[in-house]
């Protein structure tokens, strides 16, 4: 119980710190600016495309083709998944897909020094005499997760708001139905990445090394995801049979694999994947707590 109370005290102080930190504010601004730019660009391109198709007398459904190509590039060319997202306005879709792709790097930039910088200056000693290291790691991890939540929420509200204002056929009811699915999916991957960043930050006294570790881990996860997707594609070719190879199974260790799974419209497939993503967040946070408890302050 004491750990929970102390975690909340640390969380409140860290959140206050994060929201006043120039670097965090800069990263938030960059993310929002990039998202806004993406929304405007995607909206502009979609509008031009629609105008062009209409002037050529072609059905507007022809617009679905570039959208499908874009989705196929990010979602394993999975027909079910692409069909479930094809009606999403371009601005929302592009922000969601690119945001999800770059979120890991943003989270790393937001939180790489949350613990490591305080280990370097030893200022953590003022806190470590007063509370458990578990409370310190949890409080800092939760604060990072809260900043990520805020970031993702702002970006999604912005893109949905833009789509509601500019796409006549995108109704409020449709937006309300779609928002929890896309927002929740990004939040889940964001939480897992917040856990990973907190873990990497506890592993080194040097913030630069902590950031390097974090980016290396992200790169390794990205490569593992690529290898897994490649192996799946090879297995899906005609004449290939047998079960999944170990390369394909490598994808099970990658949070983004489960993030994609969690996007499926079938709740029986999406919910377990969402829980696994939460499991990743919990696993990384447990690792951060264990690392901080084991190390010298």
């Amino acid at each position: 119980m004491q750990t929970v109370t102390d975690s909340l005290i640390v969380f409140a102080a860290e959140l206050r710190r994060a929201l006043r930190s120039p670097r965090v504010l800069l990263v938030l601004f960059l993310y929002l600016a990039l998202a806004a730019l993406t929304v405007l660009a995607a909206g502009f391109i979609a509008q031009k495309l629609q105008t062009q198709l209409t002037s050529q007398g072609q059905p507007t459904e022809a617009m679905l083709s570039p959208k499908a190509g874009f989705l196929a590039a990010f979602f394993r060319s999975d027909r079910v998944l692409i069909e479930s997202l094809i009606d999403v306005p371009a601005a929302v879709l592009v922000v969601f897909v690119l945001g999800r792709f770059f979120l890991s790097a943003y989270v790393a930039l937001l939180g790489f020094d949350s613990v490591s910088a305080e280990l370097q200056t030893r200022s953590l000693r003022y806190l470590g005499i007063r509370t458990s290291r578990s409370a310190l790691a949890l409080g800092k991890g939760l604060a990072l997760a809260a900043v990520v939540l805020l970031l993702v929420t702002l970006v999604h509200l912005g893109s949905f708001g833009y789509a509601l204002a500019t796409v006549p056929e995108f109704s409020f009811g449709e937006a309300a139905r779609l928002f929890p699915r896309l927002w929740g999916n990004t939040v889940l991957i964001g939480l897992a990445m917040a856990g990973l960043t907190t873990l990497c930050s506890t592993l080194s006294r040097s913030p630069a090394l902590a950031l390097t570790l974090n980016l290396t881990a992200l790169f390794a996860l990205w490569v593992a995801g690529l290898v897994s997707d490649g192996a799946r594609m090879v297995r899906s070719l005609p004449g290939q049979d047998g079960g999944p190879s170990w390369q394909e199974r490598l994808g099970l260790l990658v949070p983004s694999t489960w993030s994609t799974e969690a996007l499926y419209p079938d709740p029986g497939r999406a919910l377990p994947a969402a829980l696994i993503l939460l499991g990743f967040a919990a696993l990384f946070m447990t690792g951060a707590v264990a690392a901080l408890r084991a190390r010298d302050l």
Partner: protein
Amino acid sequence: MSDPALVLEAVSKHFGDRRALDEVTLSVPAGTVWGLIGPNGAGKSTTFNLLCGYLRPTAGTVRVLGLDPRRPGALKGRVGVLPQDAVLPSYLAVGPLLTYLARLSGLERPERAARVALEQVALSEAWDVPPPSLSHGMARRVSIAQALMGDPPVVLLDEPTAGLDPRIAAEVRGLMQRMRGRATLLVSSHNLPELEALCDGAAILDRGKLVQAGTMGELTARGAEFRIQVAKGDVPLETIRALPGVAQASLRSDGLLSVTVETGAGTPEAILNATLRLLLDAGVEVTGVAQGQSLETRVLAVT
């Protein structure tokens, strides 16, 4: 002496091949002020860090108020510490920072505790100042304030007066004096006269080993030796040597008369008085009297 508040039993700490502490056994009685003395690299800060639970001992047992300091939250509200080389967290101004630390210590009125602590170190005006804007001395005082906040039963101060101007250093010494009997203080300092005046006892470390520990009287042989500074006149050295209870008497060229008292020869004060009477009767001018060796002499002899 009462029960020990701080205990190290055969404690060793290795950093790779380097032995920072080597089988140190030490206990500090509750309610006393103890000094931790030794040259640079002797293991003082390592001892502090082990007592605070910042480091895990390679071997041996560490206990603070009977608790393992590595146990999560064991020292909460029980120990105040002034770390030597830790930078104050920079993300909150001094007042909010101390309030945050008081809250983490579990103090009932954290803001009130923070204000009282800042008043103790005469820094009330620094409430809204961010720590990076403080001078070295002011930052040190804020660190002392957080260590004393809430009157913890154990206070560990690593070089508390280093970098402070003489007036503030005297105030900090006064603070430590006032805590005598209310808390157990372990103070590390290179200022040996300061420790001699302040401490009930001390432990002397050298190259990771405990070379001597005891009460200040034991360390300075206060009951076994006295020194008299002579300014002018012929010292009746043979007569002094012949006094009952005097084991040895010697006179240095700078006029320092050292007299060693035989073990079990009664109160050294009686022999000191007899010696002074002899000197004054012989017309010798005396400018100073000191009992025992200085702590500095003792430390220099054993390290």
